[in-house]
């Protein structure tokens, strides 16, 4: 059973500082690596000054939206302005296909996440932190809970209470307002904004929501010094390092901490060892499955928000999944669409109905029963989803599908021309089962259908 490769490449170890193959799980091991020193220094500072340093570093969110972390913290009212408790919720729902970095943080450097929480709590003067961890993460929860118990016993939490809240299996609960609903003990359906969580989040109180990696980077920012941190990576907008999640058809997959701005080619070929078995790279799932796929001509794009943005890509949660030429792109689009159909919370029509349509049309293309006009219909459905939903999950279903249709139109056409998949059953993704089809087997559904 191979373990996940977790390595630092091409730059300073910041999030993973001190981790050299042995997890820093015990308090003693983390403290030996300088752990909790930044917390002590931050606590000696004025909260506003700490926020100022995070702003200066230009740290941006690692959960997908890349929003400036310091600015988000500055939106939280100070306690003298509001007679309600102030909350922090850490997003450890990590369910974006291709993303597996927050998990490694919780397994390898859990105390750094806790230190980040406590620094953030000091900065926004909060005493209540929730960490919402996806329900499937058992070993990760045990690791984090163990670290938390040890930190609490050592008196490190001070007046701050940190509660780990376990989810129960729902991708949508990673969306920040769905997360809040779920944390409040409800179905995880997104809220309409405004009000924004900074004003009315959990329990209608001011709430700061950040991704695990964003929070874990805060101690690293302070240790490096905000001005120095802001020089790393691809300044001014994409500063620092991030944990890239390299997977798929690549020789050395894993989590790599590397500076923003390395190229996709460098990550895949030099760091990752390239595509195995002498195959050709066909596409890259860039940023996550929620975004447009990257084509080989763009491999020299630097992995920073601006360079990617100029070409219509997103950095997302740092996902780089290599798809080689053994895979049918229609099957890829279909499987991605099935994921979003399964995970749509059903609250708004374009997403609830649109994701089903995408699946039906893509299946018809794959089976060769669709017509040329169905390719236009696919794009039309995408168009009627994008920008028209309550939350971003709708766009996340439509963007990858639309990108596959436009960038690989010839392959879609070949399905129509040949009356079926040109791979003839040999594609790696052939007949890949999707959980959305599993419900037909459950006793309740069988009873209803019979």
């Amino acid at each position, binding site marked *: 059973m*191979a373990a996940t490769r977790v390595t630092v490449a091409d730059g300073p170890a910041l999030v993973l500082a001190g981790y050299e193959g042995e997890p820093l799980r015990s308090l003693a091991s983390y403290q030996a690596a300088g752990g909790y020193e930044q917390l002590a220094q931050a606590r000696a500072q004025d909260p506003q000054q700490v926020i100022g340093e995070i702003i200066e570093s230009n740290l941006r969110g690692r959960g997908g939206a890349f929003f400036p972390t310091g600015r988000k913290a500055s939106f939280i009212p100070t306690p003298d302005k509001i007679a309600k408790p102030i909350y922090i919720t850490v997003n450890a729902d990590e369910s974006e*296909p291709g*993303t597996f970095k927050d998990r490694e943080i919780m397994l390898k450097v859990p105390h750094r996440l806790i230190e980040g929480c406590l620094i953030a709590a000091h900065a926004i003067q909060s005493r209540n932190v929730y960490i919402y961890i996806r329900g499937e993460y058992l070993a990760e929860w045990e690791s984090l809970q163990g670290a938390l118990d040890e930190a609490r016993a050592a008196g490190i939490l001070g007046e701050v209470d940190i509660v780990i809240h376990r989810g129960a*299996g729902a991708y949508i609960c990673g969306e920040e307002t769905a997360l809040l609903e779920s944390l409040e*003990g409800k179905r995880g359906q997104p809220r309409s904004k405004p009000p924004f969580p900074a004003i009315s989040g959990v*329990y209608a109180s001011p709430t700061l929501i950040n991704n695990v990696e964003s929070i874990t980077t805060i101690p690293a920012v302070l240790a490096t010094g905000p001005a120095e941190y802001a020089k790393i990576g691809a300044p001014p907008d994409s500063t620092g390092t991030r944990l890239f999640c390299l*997977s798929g058809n690549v020789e050395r997959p894993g989590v790599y901490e590397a500076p923003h701005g390395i190229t996709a080619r460098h990550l895949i070929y030099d760091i990752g060892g390239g595509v195995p078995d002498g195959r050709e790279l066909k596409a890259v799932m860039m940023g996550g499955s929620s975004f447009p796929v990257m084509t080989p001509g763009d491999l020299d794009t630097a992995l920073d928000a601006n360079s990617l943005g100029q070409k219509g890509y997103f950095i997302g949660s740092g996902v780089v*999944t290599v798809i080689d030429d053994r895979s049918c792109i229609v099957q890829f689009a279909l499987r991605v669409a099935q994921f979003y159909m399964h995970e749509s919370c059903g609250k708004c029509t374009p997403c609830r109905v649109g994701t089903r349509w995408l699946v039906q049309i893509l299946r018809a293309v794959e089976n060769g029963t669709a017509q040329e006009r169905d390719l236009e219909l696919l794009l039309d459905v995408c168009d009627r989803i994008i920008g028209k939903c309550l939350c971003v999950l709708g766009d996340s279903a439509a963007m990858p599908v639309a990108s596959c249709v436009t960038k690989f139109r010839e392959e879609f056409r070949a399905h129509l021309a040949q009356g079926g998949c040109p791979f003839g059953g040999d594609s790696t993704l052939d007949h890949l089962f*999707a959980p959305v089809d599993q419900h037909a*087997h459950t006793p309740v559904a069988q009873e209803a259908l019979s």
Partner: protein
Amino acid sequence: MSALYDEIQEVRKRYPPGTRSAVLPALRLAQERYGWLSREAIEEVADALELTPAYCFSVASFYDMFHLEPVGRHTVEVCTNVCCGLLGAQQVLEAFEQELGVAPGETTPDGEITLRAVECLGGCSTPTIVAIDHRYRQSVTPADVPTILEELRNGGD
């Protein structure tokens, strides 16, 4: 009052009074105890939280990890999202189907093992990920399947 009732009261203390935040942890506790969330189990949770069973059922039905029908004593969950799919997840799933004689979503006739396909488990660099009673096994291939099931049937209590 039952042991579950007491456990749920303990969990409620983590959250501000008057909130419903304990619903998910309470449902989890009930499922850990009974294996699945029967009507009676949901009623017990509702009682302990002073909520209606209908409310607790509506929450439970939203989440993939809550079982509203009986499941086997063990669960085998195979990730079939794309990163695992690119490296043979379908073949791994089929090997489990073959060995167990059930389709995804079904339980073996002896009530021992439920097979499920699940979405990305966050272990994409060591495909295929299979969660055996919620413990991840990494880099699973079809050849590993008989051994995994043998271990589960012999070792697992």
